[in-house]
């Protein structure tokens, strides 16, 4: 009982720390621009600077947090659902689906100059829309091949197969139309450069219900961690809840990917980072992973545009370096204490 209370305290403390970090990073992110760090007060007199802060910096900083939160949430669900610590949000094929969607849209838009009939609706859909459609279509394909969500292993395998096949088709597209290569590469490395207020609103509108559903169904993940048979014997409607969680996983991932590209490692690392601090129930893990993912991506984004300003580093590279480095350090430290064998 005391151990449970202690873990609960740690979870609460982590939540508070992450919320504080979010606030600090939001302020910091709003102050880092194409000329490096500039304090907000300094900008007071400059109308253009304020416009830049309000229309570009704030939404992209907040957008980075939201995308990170969606990925952290999706990662926590994926790891719980598949009972696999290596599971990440892209497990159901959404990453390669999104990349293929973007590649095809780019090729069609390029051809669109010659065949104007294609261009208008595709322009309307945009690369963001194409990525979203691609990600969702890939997950649907995975679900069809796995004949539903009932069998974890079948779902996992179908996801891997769909990921590999769609990835290969994406590479083929890139090979045949080399002019899309650089744009696709940028998409694969991820960027928050063009996230505006509307994108933020969209991500927030997806994040909230996803969090609520995931939190409400989180006890099924707790049950699943004891094994599928045990979970069913506890009287949990495993099938229905799992379907709901897969929908949340797919929707959260697709939304984040569409807005910011394939940012790697956030979804994988966030739940681990939370668990390293506090071993808690899936309900808290999901909320904390969201916060952790948001903080991780927001920090990475701020660094990505601050380090080489006015140039930008691909944010996905930094999330891997930051998250991976921190995770390794945690493992090293806790390995020494003997908790993480």
């Amino acid at each position, binding site marked *: 009982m005391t151990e449970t209370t202690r873990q609960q305290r740690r979870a609460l403390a982590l939540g508070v720390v992450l919320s504080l970090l979010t606030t600090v990073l939001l302020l910091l992110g709003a102050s880092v621009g194409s000329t490096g760090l500039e304090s907000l007060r300094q900008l007071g007199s400059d109308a253009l600077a304020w416009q830049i802060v309000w229309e570009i910096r704030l939404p992209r900083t907040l957008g980075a947090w939201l995308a990170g939160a969606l990925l952290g949430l999706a990662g926590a669900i994926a790891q719980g659902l598949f009972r696999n610590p290596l599971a990440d949000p892209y497990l159901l094929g959404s990453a390669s689906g999104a990349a293929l969607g973007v590649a095809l849209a780019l090729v069609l838009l390029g051809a669109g100059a010659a065949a104007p009939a294609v261009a208008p609706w595709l322009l309307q859909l945009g690369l963001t829309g194409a990525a979203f459609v691609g990600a969702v279509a890939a997950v649907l394909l995975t679900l069809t091949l796995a004949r539903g969500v009932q069998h974890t292993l079948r779902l996992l395998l179908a996801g891997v197969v769909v990921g590999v096949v769609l990835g290969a088709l994406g590479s083929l597209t890139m090979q045949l139309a*080399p002019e899309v290569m650089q744009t696709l590469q*940028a998409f694969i490395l991820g960027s928050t450069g063009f996230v505006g207020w509307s994108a933020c609103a969209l991500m927030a509108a997806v994040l909230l219900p996803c969090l609520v559903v995931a939190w409400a169904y989180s006890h099924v993940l707790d049950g699943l961690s004891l094994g599928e048979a045990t979970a069913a014997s506890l009287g949990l409607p495993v099938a229905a809840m799992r379907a709901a969680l897969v929908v949340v996983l797919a929707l959260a991932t697709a939304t984040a990917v569409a807005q910011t590209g394939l940012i790697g490692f956030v979804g994988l690392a966030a739940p681990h980072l939370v668990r390293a601090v506090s071993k808690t129930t899936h309900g808290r893990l999901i909320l904390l992973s969201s916060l952790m993912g948001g903080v991780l991506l927001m920090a990475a984004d701020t660094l990505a545009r601050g380090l080489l300003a006015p140039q930008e580093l691909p944010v996905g590279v930094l999330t891997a370096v930051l998250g991976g480095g921190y995770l390794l350090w945690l493992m090293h430290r806790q390995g020494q204490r003997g908790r993480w064998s």
Partner: protein
Amino acid sequence: MRHLCAVLGGLLLWASQAQAIQITDDRGVQVTLARPPQRIVSLFPSLTETVCQLGQCQRLVGVDRYSNFPARVRSLPQVGGGLDPSIEAIVALRPDLVLMATSSRGAAQLQALGIPVAALQPRSHADVRHMLERVGRLLDVPPETGARRVWRDIEAGLAAASQAVPPELKGLRIYFEVNSGPYGASEASFIGETLRRLGLRNVVPGALGPYPKLNPEFVVRADPDFIMLGDSRYADMVRRPGWGGLRAIRAQRVCAFAPQQSDVLVRAGPRLAEGAQLMVQCLLAKGRQP
């Protein structure tokens, strides 16, 4: 008699060596050809264009899949791309010279099979001239009718393009976006050199490297007079957060180049003056509006 034979043989050997063609390519490798090549495979679009501009298109027997100019090279056998050439397909064409970029692959295998390889990859106007001269020498085209003539035409084209820019448009600040990273073409790039030649200014400084990935707010702060898009796929830049207020976008001084035009603009090759003329056409079409 035997002495005479030896002297004659020696003379013949000397003569053939004198005829041997030699250049140093961009890898720093000495390329030596015993006689002018008659069956050439080109794995790089601007090298394909160069061979044809030198009037030697008929000597090409194969090209990479991205070579699309002039139109007649499209009917030639394609041997893959620069990064994934099919060695087998190249060897089957029995070439006596393969031209490729330094970034292309397969040079070692081809050389091991006894096929001479020259790797040339221009990155500036001066490089283009140097490439023309070396390809001219390899193909044994007299400079006066070959490389020098082509370069004179390029120079004349650049001068004409520069003169066609009316004084009120000189000194305009341009943002040339190669790609929606956004990647910009800086002063240090080949495109930046053309802009400078036209008397235009570039908002992306050369210190950032030729094609830096920029923070979008850098462009908003720079507020260029004119935007050129190397790729018409990104014509929806108005929708980018904060970009709607840009001077160039409000005045609709944005040119989006179609793929064929883009090929001319981004390839550092013999059509560089044509690229400059495309930029001028864009300036004249959009710049005269109030």
